[in-house]
């Protein structure tokens, strides 16, 4: 399966952006390849810590009494099991690879909590004080390792300079078939000024020259971001790729590939975008909690693009005209309905 996916990704991929290690990214649970690249040694260390978390967590849940005895503290099964759950959570976060740095950081936070709890047991009245001291020393060692790993991982994900086609930040890949001829689909997208008609977060795109354009978007929490972008490659009816230029609020790059669909079903589109989200990875994670995950935004925007191409406008339901969850009922006043993309998108 993994090979099949990798082959498929190669088939639709675009060389400049292909990951150095596609196998790992495709092992990331299916078609959403928003994995992050890590250097091997850091990642190996993170994986060890992940499995350590899970093992320790299972131990805490299965045999709290034994563990209490081992580290010389009072047996509180409820507390141990809670800590066990937390450990397993950290382990899963690290091993799932969607955000290993975060997983290891959660271990650091957990270490701090464990140290605080252990310190309450260091009083001389504890008959097993010696064991507790040994456990604390061991834990300090683990904490140092966690801190080291998480710092290394975070540094890698943030990066320092911005090389062209930066292989960092978030990566989102989506695909959709549009029931229109490839020329028409390419032409519409190629006119970047059309993009705000179906991209929810894009406010405007201004074409500055044959290859340069200025982009304005509204990020999570209403944050306004602007950047200049240049078209890196443009092959008629085949491919468009772009990247942001230094000096903007967002580092982004991406490509979009067009291909006639089999059986005259229109045009297959694959899009891949990478960007450093405003607010960093933490911001993206917070945004995800509020239903604005990057892959979801791209999936929704592509669907809206399909709407525009096939029926001439973005279709809305009574709930979808609102940015936030809203009951399926008509809007309370006209300002709510102001977001009706229906009337700003019939540009064809």
């Amino acid at each position, binding site marked *: 399966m993994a090979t099949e996916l990798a082959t498929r990704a190669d088939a639709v991929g675009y060389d400049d952006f292909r990951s150095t290690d596609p196998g790992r990214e495709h092992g990331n649970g299916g078609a959403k390849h928003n994995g992050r690249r890590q250097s091997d040694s850091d990642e190996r260390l993170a994986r060890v810590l992940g499995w350590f978390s899970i093992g320790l967590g299972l131990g805490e849940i299965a045999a709290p009494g034994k563990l209490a005895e081992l580290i010389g503290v009072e047996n509180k099964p409820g507390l141990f099991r809670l800590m066990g759950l937390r450990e397993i959570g950290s382990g899963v976060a690290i091993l799932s690879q969607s955000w290993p740095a975060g997983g290891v950081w959660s271990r650091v936070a957990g270490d701090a909590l464990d140290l605080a709890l252990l310190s309450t047991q260091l009083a001389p009245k504890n008959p097993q004080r010696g064991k507790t001291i040994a456990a604390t020393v061991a834990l300090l060692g683990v904490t140092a390792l966690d801190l080291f790993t998480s710092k290394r991982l975070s540094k890698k994900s943030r990066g320092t300079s911005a090389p062209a086609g930066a292989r960092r930040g978030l990566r989102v890949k989506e695909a959709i078939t549009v029931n229109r001829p490839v020329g028409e689909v390419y032409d519409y997208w190629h006119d970047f000024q059309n993009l705000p008609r179906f991209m929810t977060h894009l406010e405007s795109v201004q074409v500055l020259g044959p290859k340069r354009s200025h982009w304005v978007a509204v990020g999570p929490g209403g944050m306004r971001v602007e950047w200049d972008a240049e078209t890196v490659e443009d092959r008629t009816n085949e491919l468009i790729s772009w990247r942001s230029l230094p000096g903007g609020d967002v580092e982004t790059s991406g490509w979009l590939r067009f291909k006639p669909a089999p059986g005259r079903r229109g045009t297959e589109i694959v899009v891949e975008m990478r960007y450093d989200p405003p607010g960093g990875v933490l911001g993206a994670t917070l945004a995800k909690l509020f239903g604005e995950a990057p892959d979801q935004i791209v999936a929704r925007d592509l*669907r809206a693009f399909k709407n525009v191409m096939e029926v001439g406008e973005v279709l809305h339901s*009574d709930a979808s005209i609102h940015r936030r*969850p809203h009951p*399926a009922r008509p809007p309370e006043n006209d300002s709510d309905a102001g977001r009706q993309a229906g009337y700003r998108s019939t540009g064809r």
Partner: protein
Amino acid sequence: MKANCWEGKKKVRVEQVPDPKILNSRDAIVRITSTAICGSDLHLYNGFIPTMEKGDILGHEFMGEVVETGPGLKNHLRIGDRVVVPFPISCGTCYSCQRGLFSVCENTNPNAWLAEKMFGHATAGIFGYSHLTGGYAGGQAEFARVPFADVGPIKVPEELSDEQVLFLSDIFPTGYMGAEMCDIEPGAVIAVWGAGPVGQFAIASAKLLGAERVIAIDRFDYRLRMAVEKAGATDTINYEQVSVLEALKELTGGRGPDACIDAVGMEAHGHPAIYAYDRTKQALMLETDRPIALREAIMACRNGGTVSVIGVYGGFIDKFPMGSLMNRSITIKTGQCHVQRYMRPLLERVQRGEIDPSFVITHTLRLDEAPQGYDMFLHKEDECVKVVLKP
């Protein structure tokens, strides 16, 4: 306007809400003259369909008069037209719509990303049926906004009453598609699980399509009586009194029905022990749906026969008899009804007097009485089969 809103599990309330507005160019606003409570609304009522929000307007079976049209409708619909609205919202131009698969239209579900997470791929938008199907306000209201009004709604002649054409919106085509999927040949024996409104139409449609014997299965005698007297069933089985599998063997000379229609879906009842098993797993979230009728339909079906599933399922089921299905060459066909495909031919059947769909109606209430209607329909009080609401 007034609208019947979902306010939580087993709680609906008629509330004052804003009037609908035109949001897209091919929208129409319809003043609703008749609307109905569907058996599938009970799945929402009972809290088995995820992604409902408090305040959602319910209802996907409705008809009325066009009072406003969007600029893109041109001459397809005029103000004053009397129309029945199909429950799936369909664009008419995408790959699916062009193949008549209207209920899986690719352009009408703004929450497609959410549906993809749940189902792998998204379905069409549906009026008043959770946010998984788009978050569209429903038709148990005084007015409704109807997108792609040039694709879905069908004009109906004045000489037919609301009651005769209202069910073209869902349950008549749904029952009909259930029978059509059975590929009925002359002499066929069809068994139908569930003698609710959809089951009644599946039975009637099986007869229309030439089945020789149609066996109705339910636990309420009054529904089985309706199946025989109104829909044309030839035999009935009350599963609380006899074993369905044994009774079907007896009725079909040991062979089993040529096709079995599951018109029950995710909230089936059955043998107390099996019901308790599935109900417990459902409560523990180990399965979302209780497939009691579906399992029985598969086991009962003759070798090489067809099981046609039109009862609504929402998620995952347990103890699915795959071995029986595979080894005995059984075909499963299923789908939310592609209503737009059937509206015109079925309207013609009504006009020719081949069927009068109003036979399922047992209660007509005011829209204000919707909460009582739901309660009565759920508990099968007063021999309730179908509740029509008048705004």
